[in-house]
């Protein structure tokens, strides 16, 4: 499968970047989705802008390379138009929890049936290392030379509270698990959020730290409270599905079995309806 999913784009990630693992995982995801009856032709991706987003150029899937902070809005639009598609959106931490935080909160609130993979490297990497939403207090970057004065957001907590029905954490060193998480997220009907711990070797090389702290989470919490407690842990970093619950997706809630694209009417039919309304 990998070859078929490669493009001719030159890969410009730094050697050792955590993004490679996400790219590899995605290639496996496509295969596993196929096994589950979701053909590659139905898998559509979106990306924001940043190092993470380059995955769009490297992965031979259809989709929309969107704007910084809008990947999850674009993804919702694709799903809204054609609910038969499986939509995965790649976001950076800056994308997801700064410029685009409103869309994240609302994608979760309305339970849009998309999967958002956040490449969380705790920094604005592509713009040369400024602090981001998940940067630690004290983080020094070119816009905060004396250190970040803000405390970081906890993405899992925010998504759980906003109403996400599938919340998970992966780690780039655990590619197999990451693959499974993304597959599970994409098979979940409703909004799936996956935070991926993705060290930036250049700006936030936390492999060593993560290797110590990340622990496999065997099974999802059975309540939101438990999931929140897990998400708040700071001594160890559980990786796995934190929480999963069922609720009608935004698309289903809005229009049931309708499909705007495949149900597009012929002209005569539409004009007849318009005529009716004009009376």
């Amino acid at each position: 499968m990998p070859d078929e999913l490669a493009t001719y784009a030159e890969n410009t990630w730094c050697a050792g970047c955590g993004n490679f693992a996400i790219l590899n995982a995605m290639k496996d995801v496509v295969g596993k989705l196929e096994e589950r009856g979701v053909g590659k032709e139905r898998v559509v991706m979106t990306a924001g802008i940043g190092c993470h987003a380059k995955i769009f150029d490297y992965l031979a899937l259809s989709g929309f390379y969107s704007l910084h902070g809008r990947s999850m809005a674009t993804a919702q639009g694709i799903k809204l138009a054609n609910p038969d598609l499986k939509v995965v959106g790649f976001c950076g931490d800056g994308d997801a929890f700064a410029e685009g935080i409103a869309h994240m909160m609302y994608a979760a609130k309305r339970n849009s049936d998309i999967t958002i993979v956040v490449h969380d490297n705790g920094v604005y990497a592509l713009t040369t290392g400024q602090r981001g939403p998940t940067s630690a207090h004290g983080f020094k970057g070119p816009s905060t030379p004396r250190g970040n004065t803000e405390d970081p957001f906890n993405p899992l907590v925010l998504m759980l509270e906003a109403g996400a029905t599938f919340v998970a954490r992966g780690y780039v060193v655990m590619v197999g698990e990451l693959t499974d998480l993304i597959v599970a997220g994409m098979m979940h009907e409703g909004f799936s959020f996956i935070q991926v711990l993705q060290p930036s070797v250049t700006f936030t090389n936390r492999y060593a730290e993560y290797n110590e702290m990340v622990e496999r989470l065997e099974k999802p919490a059975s309540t939101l409270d438990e999931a929140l407690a897990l998400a708040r842990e700071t001594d160890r970093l559980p990786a796995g599905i934190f929480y999963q619950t069922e609720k009608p997706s935004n698309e289903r809630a809005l229009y049931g079995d309708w499909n705007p694209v495949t149900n597009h009417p012929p002209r005569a039919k539409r004009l007849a309806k318009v005529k009716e309304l004009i009376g």
Partner: protein
Amino acid sequence: MSRDRFTYIVGGKAGEGIKKAGSSAANFFASMGRHVFQMDDYPSLIRGGHNFVAVTTATREITSHFMKADLVVGLDKRSHETHRDHVAEGGVVVYNSDVVESGQGIGVAMSTEAQKYPNPGLRIGVSGAAALSAVIGLSADEMAAFITREYKRDLENNIPFATDIYRAVAEKAGGKFPLGDGDRERAMMTGNQAIALGVAAAGLDVYLAYPMTPATTILHYLAAHDQELGVVTMQPESEIAVINIALGSAAAGARTAVGTSGGGFALMEEAISLAGMAEVPILAILSARSGPSTGVPTYTEQGDLRFALSPGHGEFARIVASPGTVREAYGLAAELLELAWRFQSPAVLLTEKHLSESRMTLDLDVEDAAWAEPAMHDGGGYKRYADMEDGVSPLLFPPSDELIQWTSYEHDELGITTEDAAAIARMHDKRQRKTETVLEHLRTMKTVNRFGQGKATIFTYGSTTMSVLEALRVSDIEATVVQPVYLKPFPVWELEEYRDANPIVIEQSAAGQFESLLAEKARIDAGAHIRRYDGRPFEPEELAREIERVAQ
């Protein structure tokens, strides 16, 4: 005193049923086969304040309200004081004598009467229909039928209440202005309804909007009729969400439109540029209000013209047009959705509160709407940005075995990011060729309306067209009215003959944006101009006098 043209102004507090009083009268006139124009004037509040509706009807076409009314009904003190001088010579003024001490005209104790029934506050608006019925000479039964049809509910109270008012007015001015029937009953709608129906007729699948006056009622209308039409509507968390969800939707193959006013459109600009780069078909409806900024949300202005012409950074094809009448809004909305899809470009329908929310009778052929149908790719080897001679690459939507990559980055034909100098220039060339193709296509279309014939030349655009046409109808002015419907590309090829016409330029703008656009693009320098920018649309009789003044 039979007159063909009859104007009715009814005013009162918001929440008292003023809009209903106006629209029911308009409906009634329309049911007589007459032409009608209804203008709602209301402040930005939910209850109280001062609302009024001006409804004018005639047996000929009519494209404006008038502010000299044959019947003025004021339900509260402020309305009476504000509008009593709006009565035309020989006209009738009816006021609520419970709240006005020494009124002028026919005082009726509306509040006292209303107190006899439940919910007196909600009832008082029915006085309008009663007074109107009396003045135009309906019988009490005819009035009851009118109220039954328009108010539908609570008739056991509404009709007796109305009958009381009717009697009081009929006593003094009964049958003063009998109205003749018109030729046939026409549809009646607001500009926003026409736009909604137009995009629906063109094949719209998805409509997204965040509430913002005066565009909001497009969303309301489509939401109310979504299942009937098969149009999905959604109100996301912000205008930025609206436009970005919309671009995703369009890229997945759904005919998609969005609607907002200036502030919301401003927030959409980053994504309009994205639509330019990624070549996403999208129609944005921009209904302007008095600005800048929050401005005067429920009042009209044409202050957003220049802003609408250059949305988004960078160079790409932009299409902007503005309808002159409610009738035109229907076809133009459809046409713009079609153009957006034909050229995979953002298209903007620019209009104003005065068109969006005014309501008029019209002769509408529903077939008179384009159908948005993209040129689709066939076979394999798909390239989203295939470098076609006309700059327009075929479309394809997932699910598909082909790779379909839309992108905001500069890209090669497949959609892969590029930083290569030659590749960058090549795609700029492609987009420029598309811009040319749009221009060529517009040359084959009707892009400018001309009305009448006369020594004077008047240039106008957008909703002001309705005012100008009506001003000419009610005066002896002989003039040629030229109304560019398309504003970008600006149809200069249609305007060469006016190079030395020194036209009168009429617009609702303080800065004269349309005047300068004409001068800059078509090198037509105005001989004179008439501008209004107090939030109110032109009044045709006043406007006629202004035209006469400047035409000298």
